[in-house]
């Protein structure tokens, strides 16, 4: 008996003018897995994330979540199903204090539903979540407007905003880029904890060392198409991948 995969992507494509940003990509994802997506700049990783989360509609192909066709759903409906995503280019609410950024997802229909209609102190929950991603609780940092936060905090604010949605599937678009070594080191345990909690992860990442440590499986994109798929070890040893992508970089 084969269980229904959590996410099933079938032959999905999207062009921008003449550019085939995503070109016939298919893959499956099981509950609890960590899937890595890598590829050179402009290979279509962000576009793929946008297609999965409904921010862009595909030209062709389908996305199934728990066996249900979600291709035509609006972005907020997909988020409401528990598929949360971070933005590679951070999108905080600059005019709101950092912790108030989390009120928006905490106020969403999904969270209201999951908390059974009753909701206690949203502000307190928001502060707890920020602490989880490494905001110093007893400092001014959580109360500063997002516009006053350094980039590393904004990246982790993206993560916290996703966590506030209590996601079942979390898609991280280059969460680690722009983070310091120390910030990466303190964020990794958060992701490991999520995995233990059974949350499925898709990680688009340029930081291969960290990614290969976490991921169960990796997909390599090149010019929008899937070049290879396999365990981190298989990907590292794949000649084609080395040529397309890893060639210049020492892993």
């Amino acid at each position, binding site marked *: 008996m084969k269980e229904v995969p959590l996410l099933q992507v079938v032959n999905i494509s999207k062009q921008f003018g003449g550019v085939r940003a995503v070109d016939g990509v298919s893959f499956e994802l099981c509950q609890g897995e960590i899937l890595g997506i890598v590829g050179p700049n402009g290979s279509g990783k962000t576009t793929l994330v946008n297609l999965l989360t409904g921010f862009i509609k595909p030209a062709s192909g389908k996305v199934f979540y728990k066996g249900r066709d979600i291709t035509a759903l609006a972005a907020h409906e997909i988020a*409401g199903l528990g598929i*949360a995503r971070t933005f590679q280019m951070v999108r905080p609410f600059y005019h709101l204090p950092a912790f108030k950024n989390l009120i928006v997802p905490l106020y969403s229909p999904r969270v209201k539903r999951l908390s059974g209609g009753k909701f206690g102190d949203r502000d307190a929950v928001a502060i707890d979540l920020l602490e989880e991603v490494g905001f110093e609780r007893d400092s001014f940092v959580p109360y500063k407007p997002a516009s006053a936060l350094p980039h590393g905090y904004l990246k982790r604010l993206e993560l916290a905003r996703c966590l506030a949605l209590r996601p079942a599937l979390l898609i991280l678009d280059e969460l680690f880029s722009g983070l310091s070594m120390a910030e990466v080191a303190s964020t990794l345990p958060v992701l490991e904890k999520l995995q233990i909690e059974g949350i499925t992860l898709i990680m688009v990442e340029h930081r291969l060392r960290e990614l290969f440590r976490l991921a169960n499986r990796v997909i390599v994109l090149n010019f929008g198409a899937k070049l290879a798929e396999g365990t981190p070890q298989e990907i590292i040893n794949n000649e084609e991948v080395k040529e397309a992508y890893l060639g210049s970089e020492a892993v």
Partner: protein
Amino acid sequence: MVSRRRERLERGIKVRTDDVYALCSTKEMLYLVAPRLIPILVLLLLPLILPTYWQKVVIFTGVFALLSISWDFLYSFTGLVSLGQALFFGVGAYLAGSLNHYFDISPGLTIPISTIAGATLCTLFLLPALRLRGIYFAMITLVLPLIFLRIIEATAILGGTDGLTALAPLPGIWIELYLILGIMLVALFALRRLVNSDFGLVLRGIHDNDQAVKGAGINIYWYKAQALFIAALLGSFAGAYLTHVYMFVGLSAFALDFTVVPIAATVVGGMGTLGGSVLGAFILVPLSEVLRAFGPLRIVFYALLIVVFIILKPEGLFNYLQRKYREFERWVEV
């Protein structure tokens, strides 16, 4: 030789961060309450000593203050650039006029009905435009009142170019005065509360970054529609109310003034504060009356004054006063 420099200090942060602290001492409480209480008292007592002509000006100012709050709420808190306060106003005005003229319903009912029905209609009219951003949404809101105006003109429905006349008046000048001032104050404080609620945070999130709000699982169109409805409530009320004050509704209900003056008032008073919109209206509308003495040059002076205001205090008067109230300066020896 001793050189001195001016030091600028923030007054009692503790008092400001949370209203609960205000109870600590009478002085702190006064500090918090006075800037709200004094303008309200002045506003409520002023009409008692004004001559009839200026009482009418207060009424008119209240109408524009409502429209200004409505504009500031839409723009500063939801990011919807509306050039259609005349739409809200005109729809409310014509609804009230029609209900009174054709069905003989009294003002006590036409005003609430027109407020709610007008807001609903305006929201429905603009629903398709909610997906448009910035200037595109603005264009639609600007064009709709012009379309209604031409339709009424061309088909001669609803009184055509003559309008609907001899409508029922409100019972007396005092009701007129305190109804508009009361509603204005209630709207002001209710909206200031609303924008700081969790609902308001979502609206401000939409203004900041609508994609991120979508990503948080929230239907931004539903929220924009609600914001639009709230803004239209204020506009439609103003229209319905003034119809009964004038006992007349005509094509002037869709006049561009109702769109332009609220924006100017908000810019002068300070955007994003709601209170600034009211302050701006209470400066600009009476000013425009004073300038009547200049005859045809009135508009020139008016426009110049607005420009001067904006150049001198681009943050808006309300923000400026609020900042000055919170900080104090003193000379210190260096």
